[in-house]
């Protein structure tokens, strides 16, 4: 009893002292870096940079690699007192090159993500950060980024996200040099909106000249940029040297000056970082400096600690290089699941709507064609309009055309989901109506009993193949609702692509998902047919007996 109590106390004391031991270690032992010895021995620092990303890293007319990031690399080499060698890297091989030792340091427009933090030694703080947002004229209705798909959009030359934006939103991009050109282009309607650095646009809109414009959407693709060393070098003298250099660049305004040198529009991030790292307390010490554990206070860093993530997603990413964000990012998982739910709901509602509407139209045409021919004729022509105009255009007409007028005159905004359900119900319902009308006429010729209920049940069964095909077409068409900002599956996949750039994975997922979901609906509809058959066989027996 006594012994176990003693053991407990001693274990407890040991436990309490553990963090203290850890602290002491971090504080006093600054790991010697094998990499730095290696660099000094060969008298050369090898830095991986981009060559296709002006003005960050690109070939000049003499064939040399130049750019803002090259200047940063040169500064690090100078601090080490060695020569600089630049090696070209790409987004897909840069981390591998760093980890296998082909390069010592990586400065290659790399965004700081939780995943990359697990793969390599991200050095803090970030040296750059930015996001994109869009400016449109005040009258323009723009409710989601998905409305920009395939549209003409103004971009500013040299913004780092231009290429990603064009690829991820399939933009018809028009690139301009200056803000005045872009403003003119916006005013003449050469583009729907101007997508550019968020911080720059926000400060621009404070100018009176720009008061007929607005920023309707949240920023996307906001990301701090990070320099990286090999994972094992993160806490060594080498990692610390790079980290100190970045802090120095922020404090001294080096980054701001380089931004100017390379004609990069001024970023709010750099201005804020410059202020932050220069902040001092009452004793005249910098607020942002290494604590006793060797780390910076978290308030000084732009990327906070790692979130909990799914192992399977990381396994796919690390082992197979398959980037499927919903597996490791909670927000994209929710987005995707909501998208799937909305797609199913939209499909089911529109199928029910189209069957009801089709029945109504079919019966109305059938009844009216006896005695009220001209009304029937009119109804058939109106019906034709919905059959013979593209559903995409009908969505635009109702949501933007009518919706715009309602918003303007009555201040009433249409609900996109409701508009989509109505349009898809009308689209397939008009075809269903014609099918049922023809079937009713055919059934009537072969039937002695002219009770409408019986005729209709027969006609429904006869037209079933066509009704089935139209219903399946609805499932295939509901993706169109993404163009009017319904956050269904295509919309949500696209927003994940916009955030993570995982085009191939998300698109393949979409195709496979749709393949099975169409099968699923075919199965359900076949069930419905069997059910209708059974339901219908009872009343006919009744009549027959």
């Amino acid at each position, binding site marked *: 009893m006594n012994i176990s109590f003693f053991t407990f106390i001693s274990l407890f004391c040991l436990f309490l002292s553990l963090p203290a031991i850890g602290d002491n270690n971090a504080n006093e032992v600054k790991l010697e870096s094998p990499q730095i010895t290696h660099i000094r021995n060969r008298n050369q620092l090898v830095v991986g940079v981009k060559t296709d990303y002006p003005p960050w890293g690109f070939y000049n007319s003499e064939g040399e690699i130049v750019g803002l990031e090259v200047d940063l690399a040169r500064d690090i080499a100078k601090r080490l007192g060695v020569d600089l060698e630049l090696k070209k890297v790409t987004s897909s091989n840069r981390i591998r090159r760093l980890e296998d030792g082909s390069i010592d340091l990586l400065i290659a427009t790399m965004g700081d993500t939780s995943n990359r933090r697990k793969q390599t030694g991200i050095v803090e703080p970030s040296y750059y950060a930015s996001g994109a947002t869009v400016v449109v*004229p005040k*009258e*323009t209705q723009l409710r989601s980024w998905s409305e920009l*798909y*395939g*549209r*003409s959009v103004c971009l500013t030359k040299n913004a780092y996200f231009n290429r990603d934006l064009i*690829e991820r939103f*399939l*933009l*018809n991009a028009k690139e301009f040099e200056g803000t005045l050109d872009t403003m003119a282009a916006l005013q*003449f*309607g*050469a*583009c*729907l909106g101007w997508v550019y650095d968020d911080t720059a646009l926000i400060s621009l809109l404070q100018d009176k000249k720009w008061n007929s414009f607005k920023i309707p959407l949240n920023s996307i693709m906001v990301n701090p940029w990070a320099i990286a060393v090999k994972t094992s070098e993160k806490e060594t003298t080498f990692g610390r040297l790079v980290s100190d250099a970045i802090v120095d660049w922020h404090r001294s305004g080096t980054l701001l000056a380089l931004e100017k040198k390379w004609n990069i529009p001024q970023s709010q991030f750099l201005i804020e970082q410059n202020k932050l790292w220069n902040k001092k307390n009452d004793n005249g010490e910098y607020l942002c400096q290494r604590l006793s554990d060797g780390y910076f206070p978290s308030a000084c860093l732009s990327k906070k600690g790692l979130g909990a993530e799914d192992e399977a997603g990381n396994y796919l990413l690390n082992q197979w290089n398959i980037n499927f964000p919903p597996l490791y990012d909670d927000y994209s998982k929710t987005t995707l699941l909501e998208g799937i739910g909305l797609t199913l709901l939209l499909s089911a509602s529109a199928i029910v709507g189209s069957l009801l509407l089709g029945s109504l139209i079919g019966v109305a045409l059938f009844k009216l064609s006896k005695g009220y021919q001209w009304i029937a004729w009119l109804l058939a022509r109106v019906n*034709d*309009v919905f059959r*013979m*105009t*593209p*559903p*995409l*255009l*009908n969505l*635009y*007409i109702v949501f*933007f*055309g*009518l919706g*715009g*007028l309602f*918003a*303007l005159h009555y201040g009433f905004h249409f609900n996109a989901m409701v508009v989509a359900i109505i349009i898809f119900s009308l689209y397939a319902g008009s075809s269903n109506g014609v099918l049922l009308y023809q079937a009713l006429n055919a059934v009537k010729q072969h039937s002695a009993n002219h009770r409408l209920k019986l005729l209709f049940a027969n006609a429904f069964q006869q037209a079933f193949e066509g009704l089935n095909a139209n219903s399946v077409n609805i*499932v*295939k*068409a509901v*993706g*169109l609702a993404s*163009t009017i900002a319904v956050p269904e599956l*295509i919309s949500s996949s*696209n927003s994940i*692509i916009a955030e993570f750039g995982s*085009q*191939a994975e998300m*698109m*393949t997922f*979409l*195709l496979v998902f*749709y*393949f099975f979901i*169409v*099968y699923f609906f075919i199965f359900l509809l076949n069930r419905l047919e069997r059910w209708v058959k059974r339901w219908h066989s009872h009343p006919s027996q009744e009549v027959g007996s």
Partner: protein
Amino acid sequence: MNSIWTELINWSPSFLSGFYLNLLISIVAMVVGTGLGWLLGRCRYAAAKSVNIVGNFLTDIFRNIPSFVFMFYVAFIIPTEFDWFGQQVAFPPWCKAAIALAVPVTGFASDHIYRLYREINQGNSIAFPMFLLSWTQYFLIIVMASSTASVIGVNEIVGRANTAIAVTRDPNTMLWIYLYVAAWFLLSATIINLLLKWLSSRLIRKKS
């Protein structure tokens, strides 16, 4: 009201060349899809069971995949430019749209050509003209669907309507521009339908 008319008239030439692109996309999609579908339909009709299975399976895939989803897939996956023996070859978005729309055409053609082979074998003399009729009807559906190409940046008629709206920037004209473009589709559909009626009436007369 007057200004709306002049707006619409001013934009008409642009819409016309946009609609030309819709027709071009649709025709290329129909030709490519029918070729592929013919191959699949022939496979399903072939004597060898294994060939049948392959034909059925591939047809299922083509039938089940929505062209709108596939359009995004093609737009994201196929690069806009690629190297062809050292030469930069551009791959314009309208070609991507045509490839995507060829998918449903392939499913349609496979089904109808399979049926066509069977009916010809059973001695149905008007099987081929009937096939042509439904083929033309399907062309109409594809023309409608070609409007979706605007989302991947094809400058077809709906894309041009969006441009016109961005330029005029008046919510009052927006509705009229969209309605005007809808009228184009309606008109072309009516023309094709009249043509179909005339063709089928000739067909019936020929038969009797």
